[in-house]
């Protein structure tokens, strides 16, 4: 009986106390015809030794690759301290901090996290996290609509991560919210402010602005933000937190700053892990504080006037407001935020800036080297950050396949999401790659193109 500590004596004594003869008797309120009998497809139990052998075998089968895929999930070095502390039982196995006095560790950490994220995004406040970047954007859209009163339409550029667009659509759909897509400039790779002219007569609750965008290109965030505000729409920034160590934060975009900033928190110390768990972040201006979904931690005082931390503004939440809540969201991604907070503390502003700067420099270096190969060209003219879309003389699919066999995941085939671009792949280089790695990449790419 794995994980069940009862001895035969215990069971007998407990049944006596209850006044039952068997454990089965405790289920006597369940109609017999509903009882399922033995589960026929659940395998027999394994010992920890056996499951360890099985999982290690599977992990080894999956192996290690030299990875140049980004596209929303980024490989950064994670300091050893991050997960050694995060997986301490007191963080790992604690519950949501409803009992504040017994949860000051988690609560203070979340307050620190909120402070870091608000500053990183240039916003006034931050919640204690969302599920992931995509769902955070969907919640931001709902929040904008809730706050806007008159419009239920959201403008989203095509330069946003394509899956984010799908997720937003899926979530907002049932609330009669319309999602309108903005085209991008095939030369610059940006959402041009001029393209907004077509919408100048219409009303929108919000304009979504990615920085950098899915192609790794930097958008004209000031003009876009100001346009949104000129139209009385909210500006929602979708940002990569690591790049914010170098780039202007959403709170400083345009003349008034964006209203809401969201994004994927994964780059802040969360392993790639085939896609999760990650965490989304959401920060906003003070004016929107009562519309923000998710948990929020506040500092207050105890009976002795000592400072302490509590979940606050719970009146927005489902367990109090039920059908009138700002969202049905109940959990955050507590453990991931624990890791991210420790990560940001270990890096500090200068460390994070260097991560960003070195990722940027490595990407530029790689693209410079790649362009020396015949037929390989950077597609977009505008400044990029740490991702680059490159056109190839042959389909990306075959190039990626060949390089994979050499142990390199060279990038993402853009065919599925942007077929109009032709043979192209999206390549990301972070600080984790050495100049030898870049040389290997270029050499293998050269060979792959010649096959």
């Amino acid at each position, binding site marked *: *009986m*794995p*994980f069940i500590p009862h001895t035969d004596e215990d069971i007998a004594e407990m049944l006596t106390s209850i006044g039952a003869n068997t454990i089965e008797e*405790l289920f006597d309120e*369940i109609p017999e015809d509903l009882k*399922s009998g033995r589960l026929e*497809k659940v395998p027999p139990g394994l010992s920890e030794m056996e499951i360890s052998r099985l*999982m290690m075998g*599977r992990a080894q*089968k*999956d192996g*290690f690759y030299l990875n140049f895929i980004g596209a929303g999930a980024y490989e950064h070095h994670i300091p050893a301290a991050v997960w050694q502390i995060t*997986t301490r039982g007191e*963080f790992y*196995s*604690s519950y949501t901090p409803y*009992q*504040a*006095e017994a949860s*000051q560790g988690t609560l*203070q950490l979340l307050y620190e996290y*909120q402070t870091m994220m608000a*500053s990183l995004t240039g916003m006034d*406040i931050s919640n204690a996290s969302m*599920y*992931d970047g*995509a769902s955070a954007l969907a919640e931001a859209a709902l929040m904008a609509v809730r706050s806007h009163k008159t419009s239920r339409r959201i403008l989203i550029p095509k330069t946003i991560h394509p899956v984010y667009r799908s997720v937003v659509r899926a979530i907002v759909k*049932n*609330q009669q919210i319309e999602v309108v897509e903005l085209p991008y400039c095939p030369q610059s790779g940006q959402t041009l402010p001029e393209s907004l002219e077509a919408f100048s007569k219409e009303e929108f609750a919000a304009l979504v602005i990615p920085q950098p965008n899915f192609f790794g290109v930097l958008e004209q965030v000031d003009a876009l933000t100001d346009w949104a505000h000129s139209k009385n729409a909210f500006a929602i920034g979708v940002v990569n937190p690591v790049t914010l160590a170098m780039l202007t*934060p959403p709170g*400083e975009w345009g003349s008034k700053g964006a209203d809401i900033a969201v994004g994927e928190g994964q780059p802040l110390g969360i392993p790639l*892990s*085939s*896609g*999760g768990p990650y*965490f989304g972040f959401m920060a906003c201006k003070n004016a929107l*504080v009562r519309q923000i979904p998710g948990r929020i931690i506040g*500092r*207050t005082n*105890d009976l002795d006037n000592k400072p302490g931390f*509590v979940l606050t503004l719970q009146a927005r*939440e*489902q367990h109090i407001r*039920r*059908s009138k809540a700002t969202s049905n*969201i109940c*959990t955050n991604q507590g453990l*991931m935020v*624990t890791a991210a907070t420790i990560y*940001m*503390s270990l890096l500090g502003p*200068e*460390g994070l*800036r*260097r*991560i960003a700067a*070195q990722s940027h420099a490595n990407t*530029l270096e790689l693209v410079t080297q790649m362009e020396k190969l015949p037929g390989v060209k950077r597609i977009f003219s505008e400044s990029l950050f740490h991702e680059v879309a490159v056109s190839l003389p042959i389909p990306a699919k075959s190039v990626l396949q060949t390089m*994979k066999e050499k142990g390199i995941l060279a990038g993402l085939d853009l065919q599925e999401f942007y077929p109009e671009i032709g043979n192209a792949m999206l390549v990301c280089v972070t*600080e984790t790659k050495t100049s030898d790695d870049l040389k290997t990449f270029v050499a293998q790419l050269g060979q792959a193109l010649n096959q």
Partner: protein
Amino acid sequence: MLIFEHSRPGRRNYSQSPTTTAKTEKIPENLLRKTPPLLPEVSEMDTVRHYTRLSQKNFSIDTEFYPLGSCTMKYNPRACNALAMLPQFLARHPLAPEDTGQGFLACLYELQETLKNITGMAGVSLTPMAGAQGELIGVMMIRAYHESRGDLERTEIIVPDAAHGTNPATAVMCGYKVVEISTDKEGNVDLAALKAAVGPKTAGLMLTNPSTLGVFEKNISEMSRIVHQAGGLLYYDGANLNALLGKVKPGDMGFDVIHINLHKTFSTPHGGGGPGSAPVGVAERLLPFIPIPIVTHEEGVYRWITEKEKPQSIGRLSAHMGNAGVLLRAYIYIRLLGVDGMHRVAEFATLNANYLMAELRKAGFEIAYPTRRASHEFIVTLKDIKDKTGVTAMNLAKRLLDKGYHAPTTYFPMLVPECLLIEPAETESKETLDAFVVAMKEILVEIQEQPDMMKSAPHTMPIRKLDDVKAARELDLTWKP
């Protein structure tokens, strides 16, 4: 002391700072940050020390008993963490080709199949990142189902008054109107109220069974008939699945869609409030609408099902594969339990709950539904005590902290006054339950003899009772230098 208060300008961790090479593109000036963000400038040691000390201020399963009703705080096996964090699993990019993740995909596929068998559903999607998202997805599928049939007049979701707050909130997020129905004295849904509520507007009924009152909904088959006859679908909130694991399959009770909180029943860590994970299961008729990604298996090769194969799918609800690492932990837990262990979970969760209920009753506590079996949890009400002494359920909860026990869930479900919802879970030993009863008895005495001390509890925590009103009125959500 906040981490920021350890900070000094110019301090940094050299071993965490890569050297930077010169190469930079000319990024337009207006796109570059002017002032650095307010991140702490502290040494690696100060970071380690600060967060290690903070962690010690938490209660957790690894340090305390957590009889927290509706939350199923059971032991989180350390092997699940260790094996889900094998370096190859951590390093794998979500967009890496499927043939570089056959080991990972095999785990997910087997998890899907096992959950289908456990719940009696026809299909399972692992994508939801939390219980509330599982609910959202479930109700989205209900809506997609009705819409696919052109059945567009169904605008209401029925929810019992004892339900989790997420149920009505979710229904609203899906554009439904919520119809609440009442509970009878025995803790069952009032069948008459249900009959009165259903009709052509009924899209579905959301239900937890055992209910949040800790009792099995005896009339479930009849309820299922009523709702289905009205053309509605049945949604199962899997929050309390632990009580029925291996005993009753939601599919057999007539449910059309279900979410399963892996962080409860399958012991993935609560992590101080997440990440959760809540796969959804569906009956045959909802299969076309199930969200992707889903893993399939052909001739020894695992792959993702694509949008093209599921054109009616409600789509994607996360950027990648939901909380993949949580899924691995649940998979490992299930393999450790095995079929025999699986059947025992509900048995011993139920044994523990009924034993604790019996012992607390003997100790003089009032049980809210004394004629019923506890499922994996039960309710104690302090209404009488409060009337006589002014000591509340919250006071008792805080006093338990002083004695080294996490508080039970308080004031939920709302329909029982001054309630404590108590769920011991199957991984606690009889001695722990007995020690908890001793503490509860001590508190009964303290309530009589030291009511003022009780009202100002806790007394031995790192902090005394906090001012929630001040927190909400004078918002202090970020530290300012």
